Each structure stands twice: as C-alpha cells, then as structure tokens.
C-alpha cells in the first residue's frame, strides 16, 4: 500500500466515494433502490435527534468517523430486506443488521479511500437507538453528509476525517458523547 498521497480531502472525492459505496450495498445486499441527494457539510448537531445512528471509527495516517443515521421505520425496512425477515420494531436483530450494514458501507468507502490516504483500520460498529439524544464527535472538523432517499425515507451517510497529525485535541475523554 502506498503512503498517503493527499493532504486535504476533496469534498467531491468523499461524496462520490460515499455514493458508490452506499449504492453498491443497496444493489447487492438490500435489493432496493436508493437515490443520492445533494450533499452538505455540518458541524455538531444543534438539536436532539431520534432514531438510529451507527458509528464506525477509522484510523491510519488519517483518522475519523463514519456514521449512518435513519428513522426506526427505515431501520426496520432496511433490516427486513437485508435479512429477508420482517421487522415491525427495532430489536437486537435490527441493531445488529444496521451495525453490519454500516460496517459494509463504511468499509467499502474505506477500501476506496485507502488509495488516496493510505491504509486505514476500522473499529467495530456502535449502534445507538433512542429518542431525544445528541451525538457529537470530539474532533472539530465538519462532517460531509450525503442523504439517500430510500423509497421516501431518508438515510444519511456522514464522514468526518482529518490527517492524524493535524487532528485537533479532543475536548473530552470519549471520542463520541451521547447526551
């Protein structure tokens, strides 16, 4: 594997790679269509969220986090297609399925990005489900967010990455804080 070849991530490189990674998973393992919407950047979320968020850390010459968010209803729909089993509400199987889907999508993204930023390792996924929670990264970089329309419901795929040596000092002990 070659050394990192770029010092700054081009936003279009990230969004194009995220779209390819996500749509390939929808086509091969979910058997459903998704349409990528207009990407945007965001800092820390300003309002409490509800639904499901799956988080995966990436580490190498670049470090960061990949996240997937969706409603409980969409998580059930995606998990039903993934496992060919109907789910009416979020349970352990849905949480596991969403963690694995996130692992495959972010892993797919990572594999392509490694040609630009060098080798990256992935953490084990963490999935959070609930109401009225806030999740924020200790890093201060913007997140690049791509929304996907999945039959009228929106799933977002987000990436926050920075070169390791330029990573801002964390504000707390935990890399991610759920309030």
């Amino acid at each position, binding site marked *: 594997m070659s050394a990192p070849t770029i010092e700054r991530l081009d936003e279009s490189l990230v969004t194009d790679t995220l779209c390819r990674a996500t749509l390939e998973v929808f086509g091969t*393992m979910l058997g459903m269509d998704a349409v990528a919407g207009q990407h945007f950047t965001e800092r820390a979320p300003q309002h409490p969220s509800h639904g499901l968020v799956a988080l995966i850390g990436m580490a190498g010459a670049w470090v960061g986090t990949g996240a997937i968010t969706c409603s409980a209803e969409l998580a059930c729909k995606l998990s039903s297609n993934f*496992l060919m089993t109907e789910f009416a509400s979020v349970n352990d*199987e849905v949480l596991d399925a969403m963690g694995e889907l996130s692992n495959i999508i972010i892993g797919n993204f990572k*594999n392509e990005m490694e040609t630009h930023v060098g080798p990256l390792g992935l953490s084990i996924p963490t999935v959070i489900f609930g109401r009225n929670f806030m999740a924020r990264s200790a890093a201060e970089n913007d997140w690049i967010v791509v929304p996907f329309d999945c039959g009228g419901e929106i799933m977002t795929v987000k990436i926050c990455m920075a070169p390791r040596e330029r990573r801002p000092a964390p504000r707390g002990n935990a890399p991610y804080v759920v309030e």
Partner: protein
Amino acid sequence: MPLDVLIVDDSSAIRKILQRVLAQTDVAINRVLEAGDGNEGLELLKKEKINLVLSDINMPNMDGLQFLTAIRANDEWKDLPVLMITTEGSQAKVLEAAHLGASGYVRKPFTAEQIKEKLAAIHL
C-alpha cells in the same frame, strides 16, 4: 459426505445471511455452527469435526487473521478449507490472508453467486 460448516462473524445478521446462501448452494450441508469471534471459533473446532470454515476478519477478541493463523498452526486443521468473507478489501489484506493460508477471499458486499463461485473453486 454432507459437510459440517463453521461460520465465524461477530454479526448475527451476516451469520444468518451466510446460512441462507449455503442452503442455496449445491454443497451438501449436514449442519452449520456459529461463532462470534476467533476464540469461539477455535473452541468449536476443538470440539467438533468441521469440514469448512467461513470467517470474517474484523472481529473483537481474536480477529479472522489471528484465527486463520491458529488454524494453520495446528496439523489437524492445516488442510481445512477457510473462506474469508470481509469488508477488508485492500490488496494488502487479501495477500496477507493468502499468505496465512486462506482458501479464498470474498469482499463484502457480496452476492450469493460470489459465495457459490468461491465454494466451487475450493473443490469441497
């Protein structure tokens, strides 16, 4: 002879999907055992007569490459077919797995056809 298969993956979703894919192949299956990481996989290998292993790489406690190394270090299992099925798609990981003695490598996301082709190539 119908095979006893061991699936090693920390995701119960992937274990379930692989069970379904195995049922669709021409391979005669006696039973499928499951483990959540390499440690659990090794324990099952010691207790049961396994004919085929499907293993993830990124797992807690003992990852798939450590698991593969432990398998090949045991004379009893040196010829046991081990198919790696993982999100790790870099050429370096593929080569490392091959060097350690993997019988095949499938990158997630996968189709049922890709798994069937790899199993056919292993000549079970």
